[in-house]
């Protein structure tokens, strides 16, 4: 027919016939009752498709020639459009179709089983008719209805469920919808429906969930509920602002607990316990972030900033951390494997990084290290050195150069002693064994240099050493630090008990006096030894007033040392052990006045550092305004301590006084470097 130029007639005939036919079909479908409606629709659709295929085949020639040239809709498409217009959009079918579909979905959501295959076919039909049909006739409404459904459901759940349960339910619903899409909806609908669920079930109730009493985020954190936390993380990740909400609550909780920890008076009594608690807290949260929050970096950062915040709330943190390390290196790490040692030290380094006042830590660490080295009380040389290396990596050479100097001195002293004994072997055969550690003044913590009167045997020996040493090191000055030494004495008591006493140098001086006197008064001892009175009192107390270590007897038997007291050797002294340790030079938490003193020294040390930073900066910048100097100086000194802007200002003024800097003549906020 086409060939005979009757294309138009053929085409319009097709349209007309098909339309009529479809209208008939529509009536049949409309007539279908209840459940059969969809099936009928489906059947008729299949029929139509088959018919369409045949028609297309038959009219192929027209399809290829007449239609394109006359810009008519191709046969197949025409068939679809007519189906759409006459069946799907027929007034009786359109609404009914939508309602039926939605009803079925609702049934499935409430737990009923539905015919998924049929659903898939119908939906596919809509998709075949064009994405606008799918969206307009189905998807749009589907999303609206779903939103209502989930809004209501979430409201119910939130009233009766606790947080963990609610989240489980939400997760389940989410998975259901995803499954639904994969089974019988257009895949493009997935994101849209999940957004609906996320919004209604999660986003709307986010804050309420997180802050729920007894089951909210804070409780989960406290009770280490990894599974629940993980679920919360995964769900909240999907909604805008979800993770920040979790993060913020975690941060404020952590800061609060941390603050309580560091200000808890009980904990503060035991520095080692204090630090251990900090480490435990850190471990706890590391685990949570690892297991539940998939190692999310932003959470790591929140953790770090919280720790930094509360660790620095307590100004004694640097001291306590050093004491913790001291305890570990003196005995805590005894028998621990090398790997575990490294782990513990690394954890300590983590805490160290949080400190703002690293220079305070350095001061204490030096003191404690000195005591450890001099009393020979370190558990493992390797562990000590390992920690120094870690500190060096963290803070640079300057930080650890003095510490390393201390180790070097110890080593050098050993060599010196060998040389000394080699040189004087013959003479020294009978004398007491002397061990000297020569300390380079700059590296070790500053001590007031007080001497006392050593017993004759010792002082002779010491002089020999002095001349030996100065013989090989001319131009140096040696001063004996008698307040830092120890001595081992062999003693025989009244009933023949033999003991070896490990004492401090001061204690040795006191005890040796009793080799030539039975009774000595406090004054006599003071005169003979010239030990400063407060030290002497402490020393006598430890020798006479401590049960189990009272090698001396005191009259009267009071606990305090009075000027008029008299001392005797305690002939009745007993101890289970042969070796009795009396002297202690162990690092301890500082007393209040000592703490003040250290703090003062730290402040004094900071002044030249601030000045050096100012000069360095001004030298390179030549001219700089006030606020920028403060910012730059603070930044430069950050790795050691937090510089106080007021103090920086004072240093600037001091430098102006000394003609290092001047104010600019026209802008008083500018400073100029004076070469």
């Amino acid at each position, binding site marked *: 027919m086409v060939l005979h130029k009757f294309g138009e007639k053929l085409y319009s005939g097709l349209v007309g016939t098909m339309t009529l036919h479809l209208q008939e079909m529509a009536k049949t479908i409309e007539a279908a009752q209840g459940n059969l409606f969809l099936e009928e629709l489906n059947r008729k659709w299949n029929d139509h498709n088959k018919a369409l295929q045949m028609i297309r085949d038959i009219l192929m020639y027209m399809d290829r020639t007449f239609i394109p040239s006359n810009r008519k809709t191709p046969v197949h498409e025409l068939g679809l459009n007519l189906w759409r217009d006459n069946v799907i959009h027929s007034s009786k079918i359109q609404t009914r179709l939508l309602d039926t579909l939605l009803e079925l979905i609702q049934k499935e959501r409430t737990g009923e089983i539905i015919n998924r295959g049929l659903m898939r076919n119908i939906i596919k039909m809509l998709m075949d008719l064009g994405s606008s049909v799918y969206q307009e006739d189905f998807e749009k409404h589907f999303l609206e209805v779903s939103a209502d459904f989930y809004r209501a459901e979430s409201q119910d759940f939130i009233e009766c469920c606790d947080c963990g349960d609610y989240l489980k339910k939400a997760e389940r619903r989410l998975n259901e919808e995803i499954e639904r899409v994969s089974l019988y909806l257009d895949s493009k609908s997935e994101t849209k429906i999940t957004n609906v669920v996320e919004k209604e079930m999660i986003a709307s109730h986010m804050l309420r969930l997180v802050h729920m009493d007894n089951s909210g985020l804070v409780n989960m954190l406290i009770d280490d509920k990894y599974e629940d936390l993980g679920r919360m993380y995964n769900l909240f990740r999907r909604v805008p602002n979800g993770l920040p909400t979790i993060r913020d609550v975690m941060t404020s909780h952590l800061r609060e607990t941390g603050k309580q920890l560091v200000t808890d008076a009980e904990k503060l009594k035991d520095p080692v316990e204090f630090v251990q608690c900090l480490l435990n807290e850190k471990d706890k949260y590391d685990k949570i972030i690892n297991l539940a929050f998939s190692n999310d970096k932003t959470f790591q950062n929140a953790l770090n900033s919280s720790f930094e915040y509360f660790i620095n709330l307590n100004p004694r943190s640097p001291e306590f951390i050093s004491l913790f390390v001291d305890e570990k290196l003196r005995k805590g790490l005894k028998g621990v494997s090398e790997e575990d040692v490294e782990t513990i030290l690394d954890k300590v380094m983590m805490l160290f990084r949080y400190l703002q006042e690293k220079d305070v830590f350095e001061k204490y660490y030096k003191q404690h290290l000195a005591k450890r080295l001099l009393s020979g009380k370190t558990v493992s040389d390797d562990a000590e050195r390992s920690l120094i290396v870690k500190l060096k990596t963290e803070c640079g050479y300057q930080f650890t150069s003095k510490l390393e100097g201390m180790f070097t001195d110890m080593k050098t002293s050993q060599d010196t002693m060998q040389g000394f004994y080699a040189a004087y072997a013959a003479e020294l055969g009978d004398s007491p064994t002397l061990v000297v550690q020569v300390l380079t003044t700059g590296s070790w913590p500053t001590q007031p240099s007080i001497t006392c009167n050593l017993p004759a045997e010792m002082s002779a020996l010491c002089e020999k050493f002095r001349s030996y040493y100065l013989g090989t090191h001319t131009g140096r000055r040696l001063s004996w630090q008698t307040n830092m030494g120890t001595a081992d004495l062999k003693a025989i008591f009244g009933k023949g008990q033999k003991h070896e006493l490990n004492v401090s140098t001061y204690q040795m001086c006191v005890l040796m006096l009793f080799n030539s006197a039975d009774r000595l008064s406090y004054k006599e001892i003071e005169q003979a030894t010239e030990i400063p009175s407060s030290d002497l009192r402490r020393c006598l107390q430890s020798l006479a007033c401590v049960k189990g270590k009272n090698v001396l007897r005191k009259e009267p038997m009071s606990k305090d040392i009075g000027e008029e007291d008299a001392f005797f050797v305690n002939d009745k002294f007993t101890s289970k052990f042969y070796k009795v340790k009396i002297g202690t030079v162990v690092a301890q938490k500082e007393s209040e006045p000592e703490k003040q003193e250290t703090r003062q020294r730290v402040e004094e040390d900071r002044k030249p550092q601030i000045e050096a930073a100012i000069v360095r900066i001004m030298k390179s910048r030549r001219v700089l*305004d*006030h*606020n920028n100097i403060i910012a730059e100086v603070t930044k430069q000194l950050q790795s050691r301590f937090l510089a106080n802007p*007021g103090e920086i*200002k*004072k240093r600037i*003024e001091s430098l*102006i*006084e000394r003609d290092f800097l001047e*104010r600019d003549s026209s802008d*008083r*906020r500018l400073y100029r470097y004076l070469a």
Partner: protein
Amino acid sequence: MTITGTSEKAAYQALKASDWHLEGAFDAFYSQPQPKSYTDARRLEDLYNRYKDAYADMIMADGITLLCSDILVDHQDIVMLVLSWHMKAATMCEFSKQEFIGGLQSLGVDSIEKLREKIPFMRSELKDDQKFREIYNFAFGWAKEKGQKSLALDTAIGMWQLLFAEKHWPLVDHWCQFLQARHNKAISRDTWSQLLEFAKTVDPQLSNYDVDGAWPYLIDEFVEYLIENGIIQNGQLSDWTQKH
């Protein structure tokens, strides 16, 4: 004419040049270099010898007392500071020969009468902002002890009282009280010069005080002191004398 101490002719010229505006006339007058009037070197020499100390080649305390009575000025009068400034005197209570003669020359006087006549002019110089600043900053070096870097507190307070009587600053008394209560140390040059800036730029209610304004630390402390003691409350300068 009364204020600047100049001649009728010069006054007329200045006023005319500035369209008969008084302020403009002052500016114009001060910015032009002073006419260098002829001074007799020998008369200056004689004058110096009148005041010179018996034992040293300088004018010392006695000479200055005589000079003050000659020109009918109290020796604590601020005009003596201005005179010292003209002389570029190194330190107070003494003038070297060079300073004395040089100073009088630059003023264009070579006799006691002429010097007396110059006094109103010198007083007027304090009214000029730029000159006041120069004189103020000069005062620091002049008033301090020789060889010292800083100015003793008592001297500083005395100088401030004197100077801020001229250039009225409402907080000067509080400042001095603050220093005596809290500082009790010498005053550095930077603090001295910055105080003038502070008095000029920051209003007495401290409403435009900028805590990041690079003021010397002492001035920051002063502001804290004012607020702590309720002298400045809600931006109001309350009358402190009423409380105490």
